[in-house]
């Protein structure tokens, strides 16, 4: 098969939707470009939704496998990214279902597991911060959210999707996305404040 096009051309990168069209017209190379463009982002989202114990790479492959099979029938009603995230989320949910009841990681369990230190025993929440474990504390807090809230928090805060894109990916109304996010942020606020977590926020002045 002769390769007529240069793989490293200087032409402006085609949009996802253009690549999808090329794929649908029979150019399999277009799908590979889409993989190159999205696999890291999808892996990041999966990792944040599923936590470190699940192999994000594995689930990412499953996502692209499903996308490859369904791309022939992809309609341009939604953006490709929303569609891809939708598949990734379904893959995650399937895995969670198969895990039977995924042990909801509560703060108490994390404390028992030594992931987060309880008050007065081991390193205190303040120690956690001082030990630059803020990242882990935030991860644990997000992980402790109910699945629906965790999904929107991850898609909004870490994947930077718009409300519309999230609504398309989750197939729910925009107002539902906003409500879930609002509740999720509220819970995170409570959890993080309870642990004394503050990222780069100046301490309140002791004297007025």
């Amino acid at each position, binding site marked *: 098969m002769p390769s007529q096009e240069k793989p490293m051309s200087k032409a402006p990168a085609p949009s996802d939707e253009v690549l999808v069209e090329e794929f649908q017209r029979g150019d399999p190379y277009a799908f590979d470009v889409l993989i*190159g463009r999205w696999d890291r982002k999808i892996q*990041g989202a999966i*990792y944040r939704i599923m936590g470190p114990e699940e192999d994000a790479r594995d689930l990412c492959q499953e996502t692209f496998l499903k996308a490859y099979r369904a791309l022939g029938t992809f309609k341009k009603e939604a953006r490709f990214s929303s569609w891809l995230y939708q598949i990734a989320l379904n893959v995650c949910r399937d895995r969670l279902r198969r895990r039977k009841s995924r042990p909801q990681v509560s703060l108490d369990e994390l404390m028992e597991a030594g992931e987060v230190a309880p008050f007065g025993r081991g390193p205190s929440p303040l120690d956690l911060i001082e030990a630059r474990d803020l990242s882990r504390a935030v991860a644990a807090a997000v992980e402790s959210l109910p699945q629906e809230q965790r999904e929107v*928090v991850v898609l909004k805060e870490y994947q930077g999707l718009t*409300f519309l894109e999230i609504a398309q990916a989750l197939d729910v109304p925009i107002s539902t996305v906003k409500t879930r996010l*609002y509740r999720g942020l509220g819970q995170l606020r409570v959890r993080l404040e309870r642990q004394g977590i503050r990222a780069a926020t100046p301490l309140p002045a002791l004297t007025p």
Partner: protein
Amino acid sequence: MECEAFREDQMDVLYGEADAATARRVSEHHAACAACREEMAGLRRVRRDLTAWALPASVGPRRAQERRAAPWLAAAAAVLAALGAGYALRPGGGGADVEALLARQETRHRAEMAALRAALVPAAAASGPRTAEGGPRVGSDELLLRRMQAMIRDSEARQDARVSARLAALTEEAETRRRYDLARVSAGLSYLEGRTGQDMVRTTELMGRVLQASQQK
């Protein structure tokens, strides 16, 4: 309550998705409602806190990163060898290798993609010359998965190759620059030498004339 009616608008403002009318509505409400103002501030703080969660280096994939180390190391070693030992790269030498590597990967990748497409057709037709055990659907699933893994691997390998190509180009550019500088320095030196030589000739000439003149007297 009244505040709840602003909740969605508040979310739009929080994430910069509010249009002018919405933003104005929220701001007017905040001017009158301390509770919502405080809540908004709290949500902004949480958003800032959330930025602290960094992805571990292992996401991207661990195994791929081990593989990734090889081309990087090779490229870095090449730079060190070229610069440190003063080894002069022939123009285009390193780049050509990388180009060849890229071309080989590209060919292999295209072949795999073609095979993948070919594999999909008989799966749909449900009568391919497939191995007896496993059944065609399971077989095609496994095949697809393997292909997909290969594709993701290749996608990563090509990214590596692109980085290596860029590194090689940088090495070459540095080498060209070095040789250009050397040429300039040596041109400058020979100019100085030329000056010195001419001065010597003139001085010798003068001395000769002085000697001649003194002998004539």
